[in-house]
């Protein structure tokens, strides 16, 4: 690969490595880049990574498994984009993704990345589980296939297959049913939205997935979509229009917020509970939606809402983005970002760490267990918290 062919050849050298990208919005510490927090070597910081990519493209460094791990350890959380003071900052994550694309085209990626992408290609999901089992999450629920209802409820791979995330998928469906929302699902016909594939730099597979999904949506007449996962929300809202798929896309918290505000979803009282919220990167920094989840939580009777110090634009990523919820390049340490985040949630004295993303749900629940905090703090999706209150109604 020559630098001259690289998409961001004209700006990759402009990073000064000043380190603003490591901080949250309040300068609390240098540990708000999840990969840098995990490894604390400059090579894993956003600036270090850009310098390494440039050195590889220039021929100063050869490709290595270690180089690829550094590149793929970027969780695409956009903390760097948020903090960098220079005017090319919008493209920092894009520069990393483009380098991943180059590695894929050369056939040189770490094995976990290869496995992830092969599974999506072969099975339509990164877990490598049969597509026939994709609708297992809705066993026992009376959910109709999408046949022109007002909304398509797009569950995504994690909500469909991951046993923990399935709980969030079910809870959201129950709330939509309870509020009388007209919706249907694709069931076993659903395939990956391609958001992680895009973040991993596999442009060809992204295009294939987007085209398949768009064709299916067009055939069914889909116009409005409720996404369980912020990752799906991001792909459907921001990436699909580039492939001709233009839909009105909602994250489920936006829909629930509206249902609560219009009185269509009545909330029950619950015992007094202290709740904090972890902003998902693909809802927050990628799509600037910080209010909907908070409005829901603050509307719940009995809940005392506590904000973690690092929140909204300054939230620490759980480390699950860009496929890392499965590839786990940021795991295996006390300083894994999900474990740091679990400790931060515990420090504010919350009983519940609320999330609005199936990736965050699995990452943080695992982290709470590893930290030995499960008796102090529970990780619950917002939809589950509402259902906990209203459990008797279902």
């Amino acid at each position: 690969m020559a630098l001259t062919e690289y998409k961001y050849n004209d700006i990759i050298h402009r990073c000064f490595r000043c380190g603003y990208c490591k901080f949250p919005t309040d300068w609390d510490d240098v540990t708000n880049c999840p990969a840098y927090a995990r490894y604390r070597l400059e090579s894993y910081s956003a600036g270090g990574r850009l310098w390494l990519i440039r050195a590889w493209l220039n021929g100063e460094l050869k490709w290595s498994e270690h180089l690829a791990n550094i590149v793929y350890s970027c969780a695409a959380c956009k903390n760097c984009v948020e903090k960098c003071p220079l005017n090319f900052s919008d493209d920092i994550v894009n520069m990393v993704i483009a380098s991943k694309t180059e590695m894929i085209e050369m056939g040189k990626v770490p094995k976990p990345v290869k496995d992830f992408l092969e599974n999506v290609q072969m099975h339509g999901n990164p877990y490598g589980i049969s597509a026939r089992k994709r609708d297992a999450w809705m066993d026992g629920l009376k959910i109709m296939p999408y046949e022109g209802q007002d909304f398509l409820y797009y569950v995504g791979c994690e909500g469909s297959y991951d046993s923990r995330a399935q709980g969030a998928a079910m809870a959201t469906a129950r709330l939509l049913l309870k509020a009388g929302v007209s919706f249907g699902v694709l069931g076993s016909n659903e395939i990956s939205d391609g958001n992680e594939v895009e973040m991993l730099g596999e442009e060809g597979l992204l295009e294939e997935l987007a085209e398949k999904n768009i064709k299916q949506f067009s055939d069914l007449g889909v116009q409005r979509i409720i996404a369980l996962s912020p990752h799906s929300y991001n792909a459907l809202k921001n990436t699909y229009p580039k492939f001709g798929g233009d839909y009105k896309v909602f994250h489920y918290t936006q829909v629930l917020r509206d249902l609560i505000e219009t009185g269509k979803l009545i909330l029950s009282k619950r015992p007094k509970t202290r709740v904090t919220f972890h902003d998902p990167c693909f809802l927050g920094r990628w799509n600037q939606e910080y209010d909907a989840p908070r409005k829901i939580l603050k509307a719940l009777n009995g809940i005392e809402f506590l904000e973690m110090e690092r929140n909204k634009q300054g939230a620490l990523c759980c480390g699950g983005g860009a496929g890392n919820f499965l590839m786990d390049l940021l795991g295996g340490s006390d300083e894994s970002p999900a474990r740091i985040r679990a400790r931060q949630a515990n420090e504010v004295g919350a009983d519940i760490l609320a999330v609005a993303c199936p990736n965050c749900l699995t990452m943080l629940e695992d982290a709470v267990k590893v930290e030995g905090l499960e008796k102090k703090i529970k990780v619950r999706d917002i939809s589950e918290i509402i259902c906990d209150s209203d459990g008797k109604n279902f």
Partner: protein
Amino acid sequence: MSSIYHALVDMVGEDYVSNQPEELFTYSKDLGTSEPKWPEYVVVPNTTEEVQKIVLFANQEKIPIVPLGGGMSLAGLALPLKGGITIDMKRLDQVIEVNEKGRYMVVEAGISQGKVTAYLHKHHPNLMHSEPGAPPAATIGGNLAIHGQGDLAHPYGFNSDMVNGLEVILPTGEIARFGSCAVGSGWFTMHPLPDLGLFLGWGGTTGIITKVSLRLFPFKKFREMDQFVVEDEELVPEILYDLTHLGLSEDLIAMSSEIPPLYDRLHHITINVTGDSKEELEFKRHISYDLTLSKYIRSGVGGIASVSQDIQRPQISKSADWKKGGGFEYVGSIMPVSAYPECYRRGAEISSRHQIPYTILGRVIGCSHGMMFSWSYAFNRADPETVRHASEALQETDELVMEMGGTIWKPAVFGQKLILEKMDNTTVQLMKKVKNLLDPNGIMNPGNWELD
């Protein structure tokens, strides 16, 4: 894997040692114009004890070691000029103590400036430290290793004047404490003996600073930045003399810069004013402008460029992108304030000769006892010709500083040699004795301040 690698892994754990090309490449590079210098190992310790083990081992094996803070000196001062082990200090980042009434805090030396600022803002909002203009990732220890100056330089001097005590690991591995902490009396004063000057400003060539007691100062709730502007550079020293006579400002900076055009050929004097009430601010404005600077306004040679602006953290990194190239480096110097006009004129000439937009800035240190004067040179990292120009401009500026009778602040190796050439021989010999005594095997950041 080598025995050295395994020894380091035993000391700090596998995650925090590397001898892989990717880390060695990263730590071989400075942000300025310096040529890369490759370490053989990079290690990121978490405690003083881990640093001590590394130093004891390196001294025994006679392996060069280079302590690295935020890497913001831009002068290549933490590049491993003779290979060896780069010790990234940024995991030593804890606040150990804050004494609110005694106005000091004890921190580990790898803590970032940004973290100290945020910590004080959250937990001790009546206190502040003198924050340098460097990005917030700069560390407390790294800043002191180059003396440092920050936004309280006018009332309180260099950052190295604001130290109440130090913990240092000597090149032979002993942990030494200096100041009242050495006699178990807390960290409230730098006295008694010995003087901290053995380590402050030595660029990590005499030991590794691991803990620092920093003096803190009142943080006033009402804060504003004003700017006074003149066209004639000859007026700047006089204006600064007037303002330092008043002693009402927290920070005084004079600057001129080709970019943005608003600053070109003009001299903006930034005056940070703070108070505990609006009345106090109004009083300070009245004294400063109505009674002191008004004579320049009335005579038509000066004017108020802005008042009541928020005091914001300088984003000096933006200078690095002026050539859309991610690079800049500056010569810092300590000069008499009276040298401002010549510093400006001759600095602008050097910039012009090398086709670099000029940026010239002087921050008042103390009561006009001196000025930290900087000439910045932006370059395009992807264009070797602009890097060469910046490098040459830096060396010409080093020579200019010495020619004008100033002294170079945090000099790169080129500037260090210029200083040593002019330095009194007795002083050089004393420095040599100190270094040899502290570091008999010459392992501490060798290549910097070479006295042989």
